[in-house]
């Protein structure tokens, strides 16, 4: 049984990368950040290995339990960032992504080691597909939100003129806008596929795909916001500040449907 060992290695590598990124900001050396990116890539590779091994030992897509989902979310965020890193010079984004991944992995670590009892209704192909697609989509949309937030900060720094010293650490506007745009498009595709897979599963298990459940309502609301945002971007030619702002708002709603709904409402989307 080598799974826990692989998981801990990945967790440690994420921690190392986090430390590296923070150190690179402190000592202001690009070299340190570059090394941290390689460590992050190593963490991602080990993490990938972990997911494959777990898949083979448990026999189902390792995205069913909440802990597995958290681990998978970290994996998707990290992968998304690494892809963007090769396309644009936005190394500073890693200083946000690496700690986020580490945090998600810590949460995942709390429940991963124990044996999971998977309820019967969660067996089959639709549930892993649903979780896989929505989490990948959400990871990319989280990146879009992060890039959007950084865009707003950089935009503010450039407009305020005096804040030039601070803006030095942030990537150029164009790169941030491009990340926001790309992760938005791809995130939306995965997110939509995930919702559809969930609806198909709900249709077979609950009898109907849609039943005005709070979780479904909020998810749908954020989906509508993303549709609106993509329409504005592609058809109206929105760029920069407005797009960044809306991508943050939409993600806030999405985050609520993901985590907040359970605290305020009772939802049928609860399997524990």
């Amino acid at each position, binding site marked *: 049984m080598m799974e826990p060992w692989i998981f801990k290695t990945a967790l440690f590598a994420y921690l190392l990368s986090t430390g590296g990124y923070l150190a690179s900001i402190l000592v202001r050396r690009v070299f340190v950040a570059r090394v941290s990116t390689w460590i992050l890539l190593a963490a991602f590779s080990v993490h990938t290995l972990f997911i494959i091994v777990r898949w083979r030992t448990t026999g189902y897509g390792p995205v069913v339990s909440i802990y597995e989902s958290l681990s998978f979310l970290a994996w998707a965020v990290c992968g998304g960032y690494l892809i963007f890193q090769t396309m644009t010079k936005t190394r500073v984004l890693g200083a946000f992504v690496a700690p986020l991944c580490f945090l998600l992995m810590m949460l995942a670590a709390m429940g991963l080691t124990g044996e999971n009892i998977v309820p019967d209704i969660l067996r089959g192909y639709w549930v892993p597909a649903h979780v896989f697609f929505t989490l990948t989509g959400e990871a990319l949309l989280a990146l879009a939100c992060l890039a959007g937030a950084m865009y707003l900060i950089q935009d503010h720094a450039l407009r305020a*003129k005096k804040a*030039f010293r601070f803006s030095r650490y942030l990537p150029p506007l164009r790169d941030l806008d491009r990340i926001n745009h790309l992760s938005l498009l791809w995130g939306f595709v995965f997110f939509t596929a995930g919702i559809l897979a969930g609806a198909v599963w709900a249709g077979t298990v609950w009898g109907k795909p849609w039943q005005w459940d709070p979780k479904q309502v909020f998810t749908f609301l954020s989906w509508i916001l993303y549709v609106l945002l993509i329409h504005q971007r592609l058809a109206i030619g929105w760029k920069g500040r407005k797009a960044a702002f809306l991508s943050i708002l939409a993600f806030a709603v999405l985050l609520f449907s993901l985590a907040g709904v359970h605290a305020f409402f009772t939802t049928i989307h609860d399997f524990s």
Partner: protein
Amino acid sequence: MPIVLIGMNHKTAPVEIRERLALSCDDPSRAMTGIRDLPPLREVLYLSTCNRVEVLAHLADETRGIDDLKAFIFSHGNLSKEELETCLYVYRGDMAVRHLFRVASSLDSMVMGEPQILGQVKEAYRQSVAHKVSGLLINKLLHHAFRVAKRVRTETAIASNAVSVSYAAVELSKKIFSRLDGKTVLLVGAGEMSELAARHLLKNGAGRIIVVNRTLENAVRLAEDFQGIPAGFDSLEERLKEADIVISSTGSPGFVITADMARRALWRRKNRLLFLIDIAVPRDIDPAAGEIDNIYLYNIDHLQEIVDENVQNRMREAEKAERIVEEEVARFAEWKNTLEVVPTIRSLKDRADGIILGEMEKSLSWIRDLREEDRTRVEILVHSVVNKLLHEPVTSLKEVSQNDGILAYVAAVRELFRLDGLEKKGRPWGKEKESEEKEKPS
């Protein structure tokens, strides 16, 4: 071994004097041949830029040498002694080393941190080598200076961030557009500063330049300069939609680019980011244009503010750099001291003793079995062989120390017997590091 540096720079000499000297010394090889024939010089480096003239020399006789060097500079620059004496500075020993290090790392430059000076020092050194007037000391000193400059550049932020308005414009453009490849620059009006900024932008990858001017001939002339496109003033609004970076510096009393024009241009360019730079006084661009989303407007005061802040920043970094220079001056002095005769003889003997001790230890197994008196005999034998062997080199060293060639001798002995490696252990700082770095081309 006296090292002397005589020179003048932008702080000590007015431009009229500097230019006369620089002009007549323009041809470095002519100056070199002149200097080379001065009798008391062993090694020399001659550096002449538009802001400074420096002569670094390793002299045989300090007092006479300095007078000769000065006389050479006076005659060379066609200047009277009185004129020049007030502008010249003379540094000796560690002071000369420190000055050279500061010059090479651009701490003594008019624009602190500018990168050209290091290249100029390197070129001056190349000249010295080509004219065979560099020797052990200048070689070592200059390579050390290049290393100091490198340390200062990488360990401090003295060379980062624009300290001129035109460079600030380039840096801001990069903050907005990331890369400038394929970006279009629109020059409205003409002026030294805007042309300089345009040149910097082109050098940093900007794709093309459009020049708009009230008089079309001026636009055509300027466009030829940049291999750009000339355009009439009435096409300004049309051109605004193509441009990514606009630099405006007309003499117009009112706004040349209004907020409405900017808004319309933005609409037609589908909200692609637009960077407006207004360096005209009175202003050319309506400040309201800067409030529009996806348009960034900087005027001359904004740019100047950035420059001022960066200058302040460089001052702070300069303090760090001075500390590095001090460290390195001490390190160089340390090295120079090893070139004295007496310590070299001492380390040579230490080395020999060390070898004897080591070899005796290795043979301990059979020496132990010898009788007491045989053991003593072996020891005496070994010592006398070594002493005989060392006798000649040591005597030569002592004799040579009376005349000129001593440095080369001492250096050769240290090199042949690897004495510097021997002393490494006792030394607080890194001979080690130095020899590592030596392998890289500087």
